[in-house]
């Protein structure tokens, strides 16, 4: 394994999260399409309410959040002249921000599953 640093890991994560969200988006389009069949749509919603999906949902949020924050870092590297010098610092700042948002949000999102609301 090549011992890359922040730049390489952030890229791998960006790619994985991007593809993950795309996969979800594709599924999501199909399920929304089923709005044309209201009963079927409502019936299938059990799927989204299943605890497994609730956990997956938290990861979906993580993926989107990470991808978005890292996207900002990429934009800074691309368009801010000093971006390449500070990309590592930006990465760590972004990860802190990520945790600050994601941990409370996921606790909140999971609370109905764990405690019932």
């Amino acid at each position: 394994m090549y011992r890359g640093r922040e730049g390489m890991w952030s890229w791998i994560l960006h790619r994985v999260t991007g593809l993950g969200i795309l996969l979800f988006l594709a599924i999501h389009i199909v399920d929304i399409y089923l709005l044309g069949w209201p009963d079927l749509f409502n019936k299938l919603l059990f799927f989204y309410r299943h605890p497994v999906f609730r956990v997956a949902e938290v990861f979906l949020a993580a993926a989107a959040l990470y991808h978005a924050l890292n996207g900002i870092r990429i934009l800074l590297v691309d368009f801010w002249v000093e971006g390449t010098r500070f990309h590592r610092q930006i990465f760590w700042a972004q990860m802190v921000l990520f945790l600050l948002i994601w941990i409370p949000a996921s606790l909140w999102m999971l609370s109905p599953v764990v405690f019932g609301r």
Partner: protein
Amino acid sequence: MRVLLKIKRFNPERDRAPYWAEYEVEVEPVDRVLDALEYVKWHLDGTLAFRRSCAHGICGSDAMLINGRNRLACKVLIKDLGSPITVEPMRGFPVIKDLVVDMEGFFAKYRAIKPYLINDELPPETERRQSPEERARFDDTTKCILCGACTTSCPSFWANGEYIGPAAIVNAHRFIFDSRDRGAAERLAILNTRLGVWRCRTIFNCVEACPRGIDVTRAIAEVKRALLFSGT
């Protein structure tokens, strides 16, 4: 100090596939990895093949994958690595033998970006004038020694070997931003393709790998911006 050196070896005359060979070498902590390789070659196994010349990081002969990162064997000290030390050829180029890789493709890409001053105007009798600021504009990229460490550390290049790679872009940058050059448009056109600058995903391995401390990603970003906006 004794150090265990693990070298990925392959001799097409003898071996079907690459294998790891291990050597115990006697070196000083302030010795370079190159010294350890030479120790093997001179005292343990003369068949080991690697390139080297200047031994102080200027000629660009001995870029290789050392402990998982691309570096010049002559520019990394044993004491900074400890033991064991693993050494492999650079990734993404065909291996000729042991640590020696075929660099022809690499140089073909270098040649593709027209790495020479383009200016048909008649020069003055003395020097062309260039202010210190204009000179400083492209200083960083003049340092490139074409060692290949950047290109072969780039995941985008590993994935798609047709990517022109950071080294070629660095050398294009060297001319694009030289106030005396008139070939920027030609070079930018060459880089403005599917296999040109746009394949760079700002992974930064190239910057970590560059033994000359060139901010490769910055150079690439500047080229991208030059393509996007006139004048920056």
